[in-house]
């Protein structure tokens, strides 16, 4: 019962934070420096790890698909399988998982330490709402940067699949043939659906991590607990939202 109450309280406080942050949207232009800083932190610093991971995911996907599809003479369709899997599912999901681990944890740690060391209280006594200067720029930045990360994840994943398809002896498909099949079986909606997913995941991760950070109580030990909670909740949320968003976009 206590667990259920805590979950409902968490949902309630997250929604409250969302409404408060959105209500300060007109002030976003004045906060452009914070917005640009968050774009850098969310986008630029996450980019290398997203690229590395996506390359290997695309590669493994091509390798596994090549292994099984060769058995019934369908290996020429590897390009479409890697392309669709990356665009519709793995690109946005992997970018979101990395965002949760790389950025979500950092947001939760920063805001939790600001709460524990009374910086949030100081803001409130100065009549500066934390939702305005700490949450809104992050939400705006993730909305801009998340599609960029997802597109890069898609492109690098496709590229990884193409390289493995060419240089693995049992597959040996030229990049031209690989990308030709990829283009033939994919439509713009596949990529768009992936970008919508990425947007939803990114927004939810940043909002939840901000809320967990801002609601931290206690001492320094609670900062670590808040980070763990933020990452675990974000990962669960990605998978739950993935099902519902996929269903809604079908």
């Amino acid at each position, binding site marked *: 019962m206590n667990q259920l109450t805590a979950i409902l309280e968490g949902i309630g406080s997250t929604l409250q934070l969302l409404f408060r942050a959105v209500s300060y949207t007109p002030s976003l232009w004045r906060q452009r420096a914070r917005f640009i800083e968050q774009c850098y932190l969310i986008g630029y610093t996450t980019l290398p790890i997203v690229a590395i991971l996506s390359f290997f995911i695309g590669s493994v996907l091509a390798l596994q698909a090549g292994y099984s599809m060769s058995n019934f003479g369908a290996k020429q369709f590897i390009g479409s399988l890697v392309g669709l899997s990356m665009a519709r599912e793995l690109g946005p999901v992997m970018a979101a998982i990395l965002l949760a681990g790389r950025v979500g944890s950092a947001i939760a740690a*920063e805001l939790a330490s*600001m709460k524990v*060391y*009374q*910086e949030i*209280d*100081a803001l*409130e*006594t*100065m*009549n*500066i709402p934390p939702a305005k*200067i700490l949450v809104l720029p992050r939400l705006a930045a993730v909305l801009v940067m998340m599609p960029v990360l997802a597109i890069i994840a898609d492109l690098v994943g496709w590229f990884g699949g193409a390289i493995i398809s060419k240089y693995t002896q049992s597959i040996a498909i030229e990049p031209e043939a690989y990308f030709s099949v990829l283009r033939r079986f994919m439509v713009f909606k596949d990529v768009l659906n992936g970008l919508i997913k990425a947007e939803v995941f990114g927004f939810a991760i940043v909002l939840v991590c901000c809320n967990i950070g801002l609601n931290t109580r206690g001492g320094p030990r609670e900062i670590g607990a808040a980070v763990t909670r933020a990452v675990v909740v974000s990962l669960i949320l990605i998978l739950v939202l993935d099902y519902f968003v996929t269903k809604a976009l079908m």
Partner: protein
Amino acid sequence: MTCSPTRNPFTHTETAAVGVAIEGLSKNFGCFEVLKNVTFSVEPGEIFVLMGPSGSGKSVLLKHIVGLEKPTAGRVTVDGRDASSETTREQVRLALVFQSGALFNSLSVYDNLALYPREHQVADEAAIREKVMRALQILSLEGTAHKSPSELSGGMKKRVAIARGLVMEPQLMLYDEPTSELDPVMSATITEIIATLKDEYHVTSIVVSHDRELALGIADRVGILMGGELVSLGTPAELRAPKDPRVAEFLYPKIDLKNPRFKKLET
């Protein structure tokens, strides 16, 4: 008590100093009663020092005055307005100097001080710069403007926190343990700063402290909180010879090595 208006340290214009009234304030955290029916008032322009043993509810009371906590029962008003209402913080300029300083570690000292005027758009950047540098000058901190809070000593952090409050041009200034963790000379310096701000700018000041020298040296009145109850309220002169044995024990504890207190606590 005669009340002078608060003088703005930057423009030297004057606004009315504000008073604080606490009526029957009680606060519970779960089953634990932290404050029990506390009633007192702070007159505009005075320095009121709130003393008491650790865990007696002083900081919680301070949080009620700035509106960070809501009372379980009773009422706290600042200048006649409900302290727990968000609009009060818009109408009355109040600054709280936290025990830890609560400086924003991601910002330089200059940006810490400039945050309030920038966010509230009270002046253009040139005027904000002038105001920030003036506040740093008042507290002899000119050389720290571009340092990070993590590069400062404990005493400097407290002074920067006071300077940050000063930039807000407060009508009411609250200090939470301003001299804790400081050496005696720095404690005296902070005490002098609090008294100077009151004398020169007539800011109403509420100071939560364990520091007897500070309380007896600069306070207009001193309240003593024990176990969540206000057990004493008087002038420093009255506290030099307290009648209540609990207050006497708190203010002038005698070190008794033959019969130490911790052994009494064990039994």
